[in-house]
């Protein structure tokens, strides 16, 4: 079984699940995350209650990276296979990535005000995250200006999406390379600097946001394919009526 047929099989199975398995799964996971964040997780002594935003902010940031990696991978596949189904997946995951990026920037700004005293600072991690948001917003804007079946525009946008993903390691390494307001890594280290109760709730947050993003990518990709079908049908109707 080659990669395209494997992806096709997975997408067909996911297509069946998008209105049956995914909504209750996402709902239960998100509820578990909220209960864990607001009730089960211990209160952080220095920052107080606002630190509980971590359980939505950090998972959203990591899953946002994953969504943009899916965009870059689909863009590579589009350039390689010249199959517009990859463009639909790339656009869908970029849309979900931009949504999560906006949530990360907003929740971060709200968390920053009581912690740092400002909503926004031109700190390395905030600035590089804003650049990532602008890169993929520009990608989506460029794709929406061209038609859904415009192959040349899709290929140019794919190159842009692949280059844009380079910003992700810069965001991740920014706290090591430059002096920033963000703390050094405390979760993704061999010895996490968080108690086990917090790590467990954070893990639930990762599962919840992952399930949410996967479901949204399925729905959005379905929408992009429907948009491609509308364009193809319009062209066929025009052709028939002109003949």
């Amino acid at each position, binding site marked *: 079984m080659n990669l395209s047929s494997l992806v096709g099989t997975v997408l067909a199975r996911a297509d069946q699940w998008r209105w049956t398995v995914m909504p209750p799964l996402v709902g239960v996971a998100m509820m578990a995350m909220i209960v864990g964040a607001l009730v089960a997780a211990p209160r952080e002594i220095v920052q*107080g209650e*606002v630190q509980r935003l971590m359980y939505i902010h950090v998972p959203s940031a990591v899953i946002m990276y994953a969504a943009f990696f899916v965009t870059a991978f689909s863009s590579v596949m589009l350039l390689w296979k010249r199959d517009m189904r990859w463009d639909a997946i790339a656009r869908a995951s970029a849309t979900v990535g931009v949504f999560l990026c*906006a949530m990360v920037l907003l929740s971060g700004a709200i968390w920053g005000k009581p912690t740092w005293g400002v909503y926004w600072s031109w700190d390395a991690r905030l600035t590089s995250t804003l650049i990532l948001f602008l890169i993929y917003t520009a990608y989506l804007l460029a794709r929406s200006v061209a038609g859904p079946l415009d192959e040349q525009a899709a290929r140019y946008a794919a190159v842009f999406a692949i280059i844009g993903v380079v910003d992700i390691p810069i965001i991740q390494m920014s706290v090591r390379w430059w002096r920033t307001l963000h703390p050094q890594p405390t979760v993704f280290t061999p010895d996490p600097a968080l108690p086990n109760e917090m790590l467990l709730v954070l893990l639930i947050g990762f599962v919840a946001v992952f399930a949410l993003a996967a479901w949204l990518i399925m729905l959005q990709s379905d929408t992009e394919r*429907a948009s491609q079908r509308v364009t193809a*049908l319009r062209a066929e109707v025009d052709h028939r009526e002109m003949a």
Partner: protein
Amino acid sequence: MENIEYLFAGFAVFWAGLFIYLVLLQARIRNLTREIERLEERLAESEDTPARPAAPSTPPREHTPAERREAAEQGA
């Protein structure tokens, strides 16, 4: 319970954003589904309709008396 208003604001922004995203997505899916149905109906109608004869671009012009005489002479 210090800073609880910021905690509430952070979660509210996330849920409001998600709600708006889902509403917009659902509206787009509905519009595209309707459009696909409409276009498929039009396509089916155009397949059922027999091909029409090509319409003349201008209506036939009435001949002048001189042209009628010329045509009669050629016929003779």
